[in-house]
């Protein structure tokens, strides 16, 4: 029992250390995913393919490329106030904004 406790403690200390030193990466340092791969992660809020029927989130399907890129840059540098879009926008590079923008610009607004 005591030994198990010690093991448990070691495991949890180890888990804590791992989480403290978990590597993070900068957007520009990783292999670049396709616009579709990245754009699909937006769907949970902005709708499948960025097509949205609800009012709270901005529909992305059919958005002009430049508008998308400008919005993401403004979210990143804070010049456009946001709730969580700042946290999302800092996770991508300019080239990735462009790839996602092209993906969404190519989507029909409605099914």
């Amino acid at each position, binding site marked *: 029992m005591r030994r198990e406790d010690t093991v448990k403690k070691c495991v949890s200390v180890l888990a804590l250390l791992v989480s403290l030193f978990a590597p993070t990466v900068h957007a520009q340092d*990783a292999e670049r995913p396709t616009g579709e791969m990245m754009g699909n992660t937006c769907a949970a809020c902005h709708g499948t393919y960025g097509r949205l029927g609800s009012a709270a989130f901005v529909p992305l399907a059919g958005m002009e490329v430049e508008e998308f890129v400008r919005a993401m840059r403004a979210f990143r540098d804070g010049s456009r106030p946001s709730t969580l879009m700042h946290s*999302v926008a800092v996770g991508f590079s300019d080239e990735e904004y462009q790839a996602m923008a092209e993906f969404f610009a190519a989507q029909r607004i409605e099914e």
Partner: protein
Amino acid sequence: MQRRDFLKALGTGAMLATGLSVRSVFANAAPHVVIVGGGVGGATAAKYLKFADPNIRVTVIEKNPVYIRPYGSSEVLNDHIGMQDLEVRYDRLRERYGIEFLFDTVTGVDPHARTVRTAGGVQLNYDRMIVSPGIQLLYERIEGYSASVAESRIPSAWIAGNQTRLLRDQLHAMRPGGTFVIVAPPNPYRCPPGPYERGALMAEWFKVHNPTAKVIILDSKDSFVPGPSMLLGWNRLYGYNVPERFREGMPTDGEWPMKIHEEPGMLDWVAGRDGGRVLSVDAANLSVETEAGRIEADVLNIVPPMVAGKVAFELDLVDETGYCPIDRRTHESTRHPGIHVIGDACVADAMPKSGFSANTQAKVAARAVVDLLAGRDTQAPLWENTCYALAGSEYGLYVADIFRLVDGRIARTEGPRFLPLDASRAQIRIGALYQQNWMRTFTDDCFA
């Protein structure tokens, strides 16, 4: 056979109607992908497999014909929604995309012959399999607790269903001035902000319906997500006194400062370092023994430790951690080739166990499965997670992260993750609005 062809034709028609013009590489011999588990991960994978190639035959094996969503299910406890609002049906996945559903239980898989058998006596061949089994709760890990105690007296309500209803009824019948005790689980667990959001939503409800009630959250951990932003919300709404070690960066003046309350409010959190770890439960007396002593409850809610869902063990996909090791690029099991594991059950490094994580993992796995079946190179994966959480029905919080593959591991992309501590009232309120809308858009992205 004829019926299947008809369904397939119907499926293809539906794809055209949704505006997809993906050219199939499987014109003559369409592969069959079997998905085990029809929760967030399984449903999303089925849909995105069809997007990637409409000719792939997709069969989902799921035991329940109606899915009860766990995300947002604490909102049943404060009557913000009803149990029926948690129900999600599979009709749209079947009708729009031609995904086949088999409501049955998997009893065995032969990973070499690539066959799967069910309790109902069906045997299916598959070319690749995606397993999304979710979690199972280890009630017995806590002395005095068990599945039968959870079903009858001390619900966990962590997998939505009868225990959610039981906990709701207990809370609503609690005596005036009673104590609601939540026991938070150790890491890793499904829905990191969940226990803390649940405590907050009940404190908000008690303020109106049982104003002398107390909420105590007992924890073996010393911190949680979304951390200080939740503690600040508790301080503002329920008079919680934020421990000094978390106060850095909290506003002390301006429109909505953090205050130190002479008389602490109705909600308390006992961290592991303060003796919050639970040692045993006395089900008869509704009390728990903690490292800091005995605590009596009027309503007791225990979220026990958890591991991968049962079917993951039956399919031999689990290692000594209790979860399923995978090749992160494709989510393919490192124990059994041809089987991909997604969602809460897989080892995903920096990603939390959440519905949003399962949803983006499903998309990565679906793309990888189609590329592997077609003999193409797999793509660089990208994942995201956003956990929305409420400190009150109009007080929205979040943690948001982009994840990438780095040296074979899933790593968080550098950047701020939480609602800033100096966020305005308007931002906080919009956060809650987003949380409510996300429930709908997210459910649609997975199931419609």
